[in-house]
């Protein structure tokens, strides 16, 4: 084996006024030919900066201070710009996280691929087109003749990522840098893209530097692993070594934070329901008007389910499955087209607007985006007490309760007088939980409540929810796209697909004995599924 890339003592400086002096500090790594190296870390760990430095794509103000990166016997960091440009896209290629924005919206897919050949002055016009078609076929996009003429907006996220890969592979690079290429995709699409990358590595024997935050993905594809934190390498080794026998505390914490095959013990559930959804339906109509046909999407299609008092029910599905619409319908942020939402004896779906306002407190929600779920111009105290005061609870009492709740969620009472921007993402989610609790709800709906958080923060918030569940006997409908997260917290799991409820059962049943094909497909797509199974055994 020969070394494709060798990074030695790389240090990247951040502009003045940043939260730390170096984005990356004294980092060394090597990738052998045909090897996949996973660089793992949370946001701000410097993993993307390392990749951008190699490609010469560092943002303005960010500079390499020391170290070198040897590729094809040259230090790519210090090459003159013209040579760097010749290198990019030819022997070193890169794909990015956001397939929705990484392609030029005004250019046909084919033209964007052909452009790579043109930039490096290879082949004739007609050869370029043939090559582009071959590439589209190679990344298994359907109907290549049509795709080559399509604009990016006509493709799905997964298809765009395939088109990006086709572009990156155009000139058979020796090194492919993939910066979180599957993070924005659904699990099943993610599994397909990972498989595609593995296949291409096999076929072409190129080296891959794969950047990710997800140890599940690492378990799927890595040969070698490097764990980064705050710009430094904290652990390195083969995939097997790092996953089975992590040395550094930080790696251990990250690995603990993602669930293994250890499923929680089933608990005895109460007979009384906190929420009963019966025959719920919601149809979205788009278009219409003078010349446009009406398009119908059945977001929620005749779904019935029950959440028992004190139970945490996980609602799992991919994007477009209708899980979020179901959640929003259950709190009546969306009015359903049919069916019932029974909470504590009242049908929320049938109330008039005025009656509904008085019953709102019965179901509360914890939202996904910690940065959007708090009004930036309102103090925390106001955010928490608005609801109780509107309900008629005396201000003094509501404020005392708010302070108490802030203590309970682990923030301390003095958080009340501050503004949202003074808190981190995880802290804001705690405030969101306190706000929901302040209404004494019969049920809390958590809509992707930990999805936007880093793994280690995610674990802390999940711990808090688990603790509250015990202490306050909370009933929670926990909506998530991530089966692994659901397994950590929930008593039962409901799986949704295209608006319909596919399967519902205890965590054990769903994971170990799934009844439906779709559930099996979802489970198989979970990154690191096999490794989890080994862990369970």
């Amino acid at each position, binding site marked *: 084996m020969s070394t494709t890339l060798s990074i030695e003592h790389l240090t990247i400086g*951040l*502009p003045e*006024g*940043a*939260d*730390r002096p170096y*984005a990356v500090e004294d980092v060394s790594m090597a990738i052998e030919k045909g090897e996949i190296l996973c660089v793992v870390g949370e946001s*701000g760990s*410097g993993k993307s*900066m390392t990749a951008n430095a190699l490609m010469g794509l560092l*943002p303005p*103000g*960010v500079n390499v201070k020391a170290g070198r990166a040897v590729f094809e016997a040259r230090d790519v960091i210090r090459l003159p710009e013209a040579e760097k440009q010749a290198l990019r896209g030819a022997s070193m290629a890169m794909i990015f996280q956001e397939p929705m924005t990484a392609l030029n919206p005004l250019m046909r897919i084919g033209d964007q691929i052909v452009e790579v050949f043109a930039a490096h002055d290879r082949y004739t016009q007609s050869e370029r087109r043939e090559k582009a078609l071959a590439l589209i076929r190679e990344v298994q996009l359907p109907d290549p003749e049509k795709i080559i003429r399509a604009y990016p907006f006509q493709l799905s996220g997964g298809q765009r990522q395939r088109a990006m890969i086709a572009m990156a592979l155009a000139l058979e690079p020796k090194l492919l840098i993939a910066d979180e290429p599957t993070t924005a995709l659904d699990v099943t699409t993610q599994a397909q893209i990972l498989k595609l990358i593995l296949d291409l590595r096999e076929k072409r024997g190129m080296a891959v530097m794969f950047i990710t935050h997800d140890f599940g993905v690492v378990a799927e594809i890595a040969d070698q692993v490097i764990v980064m934190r705050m*710009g430094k390498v904290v652990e390195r080794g083969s995939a097997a070594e790092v996953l089975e026998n992590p040395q550094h505390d930080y790696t251990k914490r990250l690995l603990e934070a993602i669930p293994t095959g250890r499923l929680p013990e089933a608990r005895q559930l109460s007979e009384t329901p906190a929420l009963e959804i019966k025959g719920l339906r919601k149809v979205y109509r788009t278009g219409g008007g003078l010349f446009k046909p009406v398009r119908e999407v059945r977001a929620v299609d005749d779904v019935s389910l029950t959440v028992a008092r004190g139970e945490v029910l996980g609602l799992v599905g991919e994007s477009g499955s209708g899980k979020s619409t179901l959640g*929003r319908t259950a*709190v009546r*942020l969306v009015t359903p087209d049919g069916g019932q939402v029974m909470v504590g004896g009242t049908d929320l779906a049938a109330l008039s607007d005025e009656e509904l*306002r*008085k019953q*709102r*407190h019965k*179901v*509360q*929600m914890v*939202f*996904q*985006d910690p940065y*959007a*779920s*708090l*009004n*930036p*111009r*309102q103090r925390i105290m106001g*955010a928490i007490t*608005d*609801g109780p005061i*509107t*309900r008629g609870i005396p201000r003094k009492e509501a404020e005392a309760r708010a302070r108490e709740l802030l203590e309970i969620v682990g923030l301390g009472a003095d958080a009340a007088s501050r503004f949202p921007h003074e808190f981190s993402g995880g802290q804001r989610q705690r405030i*969101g939980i306190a*706000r929901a609790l302040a*209404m004494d709800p019969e049920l809390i709906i958590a809509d992707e409540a930990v999805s936007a958080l880093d793994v280690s923060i995610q674990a802390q918030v999940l711990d808090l929810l688990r603790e509250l569940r015990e202490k306050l006997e909370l009933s929670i409908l926990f909506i998530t796209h991530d089966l692994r997260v659901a397994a950590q917290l929930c008593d039962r799991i409901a799986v949704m697909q295209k608006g319909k409820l596919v399967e519902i059962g205890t965590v054990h049943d769903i994971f170990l004995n799934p009844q439906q094909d779709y559930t099996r497909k979802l489970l198989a797509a979970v990154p690191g599924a096999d490794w989890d199974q080994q862990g369970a055994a």
Partner: protein
Amino acid sequence: MWKRFRSNIGAMVGVVLLAAVILIAIFAPLIFANTPWQMVQRPFLAPFSMDSLPLGTDTLGRDVAAQLAYGARVSLLVGLVSTLVALLIGVPLGALAGFYGGYVDEGAMRFTEFFQTIPNFALAIVLVAIFEPTLASITLAIAIVSWPPVARLVRAEVMSVRKREFVDAATLAGLSKPRILVRQVLPNTVSPIIVMASLMVATAILLESSLSFLGLGDPNAMSWGYMIGAARTVIRSAWWLSFFPGIAIVITVLALNLIGEGLNDALNPHLSRKGKA
């Protein structure tokens, strides 16, 4: 935020210039012994030829410097009041359209689009011509042609804020819709409105001066546009009569634009947020 604004050289230049114009407007009667209508010397007195009349006299022998100072009052007053009136029309309309959506939005936006299609200066001319030029009719006409961009901006802002989760949270807290709009949504749209308003004052001053230039100014108020309009025919013999009022307009409008840009950079610092790992 003030720190960012203060470190912006352009914005600080704007503040100083505008402050000077405002001071001159306020203290005009104290600085100048002559009213702008009084004949004080022979007509067409060139500038810098007499210490007491630094900018010379106009076609009727009136003090140009005094006219400029009093003109500042009209410009600033009309600019400010017409902007306030435009905000009074545009903000509620845009807020309701953006917040309630559906037919309210459809109706409000058709209405706004209609006013945006009409060539706005031509409409202002028609309005002032038909309702006789007075300070009130001029101010109103300018307001009527300047509110549509406000409505569109507020609508867009409200629509984007409305989608944020804290608005859902407020709904779940049982707050009423009007209260959510006023207490939760609108406060988050204030910064772009302030920026737009400061730029609108500048545009309004330009509009007012253009109307006066065409002879559609209030005959009882001295204004910069009127001065230039009156001097237009004598430009060959007395260039300074049109030159100085023009400079006054440029300085005032430039100052407001600089302040507007400074506010924009200070209030929407998305450019300075980069550079994080």
